C-alpha cells in the first residue's frame, strides 16, 4: 500500500488541545509543512505567545521559547540578533500582538527585524473566555462588551497590516483568510513566503491570518468561516500590503 498523505515532520506527535474547528490547528500544520519543505527544521527557533497558542512548544518540533504576553517580537529579536543564521519566527494572537504587545511589534517592524511573524486575528481573547480584543468588530459581543463593541466607549478595531505597512522596515505584509480551499492555499503560500523572505535575508515579514473562535463566537466552525468571509473581511480586507 502506498502512503499518500502523512503528518508533517515539522510537528511533534502530541495531539492539539485546540477546540474542534479552531484554525490554530490548521495554521500550526501549515507552519510545520513550510519548515519541512524549506528544510529548515533544525535551523528554526519558534517564539510562542500567551493565549490559546501558549502550548505551541508541545507541537512544534523545532526549538521553542515561550514569551511573556506580547513580548514575542522582542524575544525573537534577541534570538535573531545573536544567532542571525537561524530562522526565527513569532506566533501571536490579536490580544498578544495588537494590544499588550503593540510597542514590540511596531518597533520590530520599524527596525526591519529579520524575523517572520504569524499573526492570528480571531477578534477575541479565546483562552481567557472571550473578552473584547483590540480587533473585536464594531457591534460584536464579548464578555467585556456584552452589548456589543461601542466605538464611543471602546474605540475602533486596529488594522495591524495597514498600520505596519506605513513603515519602511517590513519586506512583506499580507492578510489572508483560510476559510476556503483557495484561501487555504493562499494562506500556506503567504506563510511560506514569510519564511522564504527571512532565508533570503530580507526584512520583517508578517502574515495576518483571519481566524475563528467557534467557542467564544458561539458558532459552528462552518458558521465562523461565513462570518470571517462576510463580516470580518469588511473591517480587515484581504490582500498584500507590502511586498519588496
Amino acid at each position: 500500500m502506498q502512503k499518500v498523505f502523512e503528518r508533517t515532520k515539522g510537528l511533534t506527535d502530541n495531539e492539539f488541545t485546540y477546540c474542534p474547528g479552531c484554525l490554530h490547528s490548521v495554521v500550526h500544520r501549515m507552519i510545520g509543512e513550510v519548515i519541512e519543505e524549506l528544510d529548515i527544521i533544525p535551523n528554526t527557533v519558534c517564539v510562542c505567545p500567551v493565549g490559546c497558542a501558549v502550548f505551541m512548544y508541545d507541537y512544534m518540533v523545532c526549538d521553542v521559547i515561550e514569551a511573556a504576553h506580547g513580548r514575542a517580537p522582542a524575544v525573537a529579536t534577541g534570538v535573531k540578533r545573536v544567532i542571525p543564521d537561524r530562522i526565527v519566527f513569532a506566533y501571536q494572537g490579536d490580544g498578544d500582538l495588537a494590544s499588550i504587545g503593540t510597542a514590540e511589534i511596531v518597533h520590530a517592524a520599524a527596525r526591519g527585524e529579520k524575523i517572520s511573524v504569524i499573526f492570528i486575528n480571531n477578534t477575541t481573547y479565546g483562552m481567557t473566555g472571550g473578552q473584547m480584543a483590540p480587533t473585536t468588530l464594531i457591534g460584536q459581543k464579548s464578555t467585556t462588551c456584552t452589548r456589543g463593541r461601542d466605538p464611543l466607549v471602546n474605540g475602533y478595531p486596529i488594522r495591524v497590516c495597514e498600520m505596519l505597512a506605513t513603515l519602511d522596515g517590513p519586506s512583506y505584509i499580507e492578510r489572508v483568510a483560510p476559510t476556503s480551499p483557495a484561501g487555504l492555499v493562499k494562506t500556506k503560500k503567504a506563510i511560506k513566503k514569510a519564511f522564504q523572505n527571512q532565508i533570503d535575508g530580507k526584512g520583517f515579514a508578517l502574515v495576518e491570518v483571519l481566524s475563528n473562535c467557534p467557542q467564544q463566537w458561539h458558532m459552528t466552525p462552518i458558521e465562523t468561516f461565513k462570518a470571517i468571509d462576510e463580516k470580518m473581511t469588511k473591517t480587515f480586507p484581504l490582500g498584500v500590503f507590502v511586498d519588496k
Partner: protein
Amino acid sequence: MSTKKLLKGNVAICYGAVAAKCNAFFGYPITPQNEIPEHMSDMMPANGGVFLQAESEVSAISMVYGAASAGKRAMTSSSSPGISLKQEGLSYIAACELPCVVVNVQRGGPGLGTILPGQADYFQAVKGGGHGDYKLLTLAPWSVQECYDFVPLAFDLADRYLNPVMILMDAIIGQMLEQCELHDRFPVIDYAKAWATNGARGRAHNIVNSLWIDPEVLENLNLRLQAKYAAAQLHEVRLHEYRTEDAELIIVAYGCSARICRTVVDMARDEGMAVGLLRPITLLPFPTSQIAKHAQNGRRFMAVEMSLGQMVEDVRLAVNGMADVAFHGRAGGVVPSPTEVLNAVRAGFGKPPVISRYPSEEMEAR
C-alpha cells in the same frame, strides 16, 4: 593584560562586560546610567558583540531573555524606574533558569523620583522584585574598580547558578571617576549550554518555558530555585570588613554608603570609639551568619543606607534579637554626610552631636 584608566563607574561596567565576553547588550536611555548604553553602542560591535537600543525597558529585558535562551551572554542596564519595568522579564528569566546580568544604577524614588543617588531598590533587588518565589543574586560595588571586576563575576555566577544576577549600584558609584585597573585576573569560562534554543541540530528540540499546568511540577521548579539560593548562601557570600576586630559597634552598609561609613569609622576611632564597618558585597546571598557571629560576640550594629530602612531588616534577621540594631538613613537622593553618620554613632555611645568639620555642611546648617 593590565592597563590603568580613569573611568566612571558606568564606563567601567562596559569594560567589564567586554572582558567577560558579553555577547549582547540591550538598553534604553535613563539617567544616571546613560554612559552604559552609550559606550556599549560602540564597544559591543567593536568586540564582535551585539548592541541594540530597545523601544522600552520591557522590550530590552525581553531581548535579553531571547539572547540568553539562545545560549549567549546577555546583559541590560537601567536605573530605578526602568528596573521596575524589567521585573516582568526578570521573573520569566528566573523561572526559565536562564543566565543574564542586569545593572541598576539606582536613583532616588519612589515614582519618577530624582536622578540623584539612592539605595531604595534594595527590597526590589534581593526579595524578588517581580511575581513569584524567585530571587536575584545581587552584587554591590563600592568603587569603580569593583564595577569592572563584578561584571565577569556576575556572568560567571549567572552561568553557574542559571539565574539572573543584578549589579546594584547608585548614581554616585556610576558617575564618579576613579582609577580602574583593566586586568584579566578572572576566569571567563565558556559553559556548555545544552539547553539553549539555538536550533535543534542533531538533538531533540529544546524548550524554554515557564508555564507549568501541573502544580507539582511547578512546585518542584520552586524547590529547585530555593535549593540554588541555599547553595549560593553557602558558597557565594562575599563581604568586606574594616576595623571590626575589636569593634564595639559595627556599621553595616553597602555601596556608596559604605564608602561614607569607612570615613566615619576612622573619625570615630580618632575620638576613641571602637567602631568597625561590615560591607556586604553580595546583598543576596546576604552575610547572615557572619553578622550573627559578631552578634554572638557581643557587638552592636548600626545599618546606614540611602533609604529609610531596607537592608536593616536583613541585619535584624541575622542578629535575631541577640543585639541592638540602630539605623541611620537618608532618602530621596540625599546623601548622608560623614558628620551626620558620626553623630548617629556618637549617640550610640551616649555622646552629644558635633558640628561638622566640613565647610559645605556648615553652610548648609546655616
